[in-house]
């Protein structure tokens, strides 16, 4: 599991400190923490509980109710496949399966190297482009299984390029 560093402890405290210690702050605090860390750690939820004077179980029970919250760090490249009605009717399921097959993980999971994660979302507001997938914040419309391959390949190529650049940089510097 991901270790929480002292710096992160500090960051969590800052997030929590911005809100009044009342029950109504619970969801906004959790949102702030997730904004910061991209997920909710057990440690963060315990701290929230202490701030609000409720049990960690209570915090967890609320957090798990809502789809927005995740409890594991997402991949560096978070893939979201839209399975809203329009995308479903136009084959969103097939796109999701292709991502799963290509990356060898299921929806809700992150690859072992922490590079990719896959989630499903409902209607991202551009049904005219269905089926739709998101890579980070960028929307890719009119998806097709062949485009799935291209997208992932593109990321790998970009990563290799960056590594080459980095290596070049380092050899130049030394």
């Amino acid at each position: 599991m991901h270790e929480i560093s002292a710096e992160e402890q500090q960051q969590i405290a800052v997030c929590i400190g911005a809100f009044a210690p009342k029950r109504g702050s619970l969801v906004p605090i959790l949102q702030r923490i997730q904004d910061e860390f991209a997920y909710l750690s057990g440690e963060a939820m315990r701290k929230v509980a202490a701030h609000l004077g409720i049990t960690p179980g209570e915090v967890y029970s609320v957090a798990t109710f809502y789809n927005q919250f995740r409890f594991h760090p997402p991949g560096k490249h978070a893939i979201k496949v839209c399975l809203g009605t329009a995308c479903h009717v136009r084959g969103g399921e097939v796109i999701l399966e292709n991502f799963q097959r290509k990356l060898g993980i299921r929806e809700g999971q992150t690859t072992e190297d922490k590079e990719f994660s896959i989630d499903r979302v409902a209607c991202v507001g551009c049904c005219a482009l269905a089926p739709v997938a998101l890579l980070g914040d960028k929307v890719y419309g009119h998806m097709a299984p062949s485009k799935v391959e291209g997208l992932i390949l593109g990321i790998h190529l970009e990563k290799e390029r960056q590594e080459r650049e980095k290596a070049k940089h380092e050899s130049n510097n030394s």
Partner: protein
Amino acid sequence: MSQTTPRISFNAIREQAEKRRKELDETGLPKVHIGMATCGIAAGALETKTAFEQALADQNIAARIHAVGCLGHCYAEPLVLVENPGWPPIFYYGVTPGNAGMIVRAFLRDGDPLLETLLGATEPNDLIPQVKDFPRFAFEKKVITQKSGFIDPEDVYDYIDHGGYETLSACLEKSPGDILQEVVHSGLRGRGGAGFPTGTKWRLAREAEIEHKVVICNADEGDPGAYMDRTILESNPHQVIEGMVLCAYAVGASKGIIYVRAEYPLAVRVITKALQQAEGLGLIGKNILGTDFSFDLSLFQGSGAFVCGEETAMIQSIEGYRGVAQHRPPYPVEKGLYGWPTVINNVKTFASIAPILERGAEWYRSMGTDKSPGTAVFSVVGNVVHPGLVEIPMGVDLRTLILEICGGIPNKKAFKAVQIGGPSGGCLPERFLDTPIDFDSLTEAGAMMGSGGIVVMDEDTCMVEVARYFLDFTQKESCGKCTFCRVGTKHLLGILERITKGEGRETDLKTLQELSQDIKLGSLCGLGKTAPNPVITSLRYFREEYEAHIKEKRCPAKMCRSLTAFYIDLDKCARGCDACVGSCPVEAIFTTKDRKKAVDQILCVKCGECMVACPVEYSAVKKISPAQLAPIIPRPEKKEDKKAE
């Protein structure tokens, strides 16, 4: 009473807005308005904007780029309106970065409007066809979205310059009772789904003798295939805010909350900015426009749970609890957030208020039908030629909306069904196309107005599968309080899954029917009460489809993947062609002995890519149901494969 009246206070603000516009107008520069709501950005509007900036700089042409919201024509994004002095304003559709450069060079520099790439003009002229003559524009009657797509949502002055907040300033000089009366007279019914008369709700809140009252705007938009509310907020947040302030004044509320899903990052950003700007000008907050009336308005981000669109669940979630629906009565207007009387209305309901109070209840009633006055905004998506947001008067029939306004079904396919009202709604077949779209007619037909999501389905859509899809959704979203909803929907889903896999039983249809009724009766909130609707309507109107799945293991629409197979018609396959091979994500396509292609039925995942890849002149890839009808062609031994090459 002090001397300044709200109107006087507002005049200063309006003058500021007018002055800014005049300054811009006097420069006489061309204007390029680019639609930058979510749909535009997804289609590449950011890149298009950059390309415009670049091209203008390259050509040394001065022009003003104006980021606006969504006009509703999502099929045409990125959509750009160019105002070139001496010309009527012209819409261009699908403007890629390349097109942007072309428009700058050909039109702005050389005066050639590029007739082949434009959509139409917005004013009469001799040369360019007018958009108002196209059905997609002609039938629309814009009230809620009138300013959307023409103003910059992040600039309050733009809204004010287009008449915004004028109504608020005028209404603050009247008594709250007068405002209330006008809303009651207008006959406005809530646009969030149930169609409850807004005036009645407001009156109940007004009559509550408790000092502290709350107004909440429901922008949770849970329907997984609809995006009207989000687009309205992204395109014109101030019209919603103005409606909320007017409501607060009418009912005597001092606190307001806009409840938006956190998954709508652009909407959240736009509203946050709008609230700051409105507060800065004294249009919300303390002593609005110099009066005694104060209204504190803030944003609350919903965390993505469909049931939180239900008002009592929403209140639970704002208070920091799991969004579990509560028993009504007491209704929120009696006892809502923290026990205070609370008015909850939909985004479109609030956005209708300023136009109603500006032009009067009579005017509003002149649109729509007797029992459902006014206009409604729909997001029409799925298998239609021109998907997007459409605002039409209530009472227009489905045929006009789908076949005329939205251009009908693409790819020469036949219309099959229209799904209205999202997970709570129903699927209506062709014979219902003449149903007028209003609260009562749709309910009568077995569907529901819902919040405005309409999904059009062509002959390739399986109704059993669609019912399964919605049950899968509601089953996951049930808050779990009522046993019938929690367990019943799971059971319904299980049966539907079985049927779509070809494992249905003869008794299933009866069970589906009975269980649906039980869930309706045994659930507390609208989620459970309406969750079986997709099953009930599809069973009622498409029963033969269920029967084909169960009795013949056949999916008539060839959509259910367990029941269909893809194969290649060897008579049509062109020898040596391998267009399909690379398209297959699982390498299920192989070369036969006589150098044609065939599908390995065991490996095939039925994604249909090969069907798309196969050149139309051959159209050799076929889809068939039941699956066992597909011819089985053995894969040649590896050795022979080599030889053939």
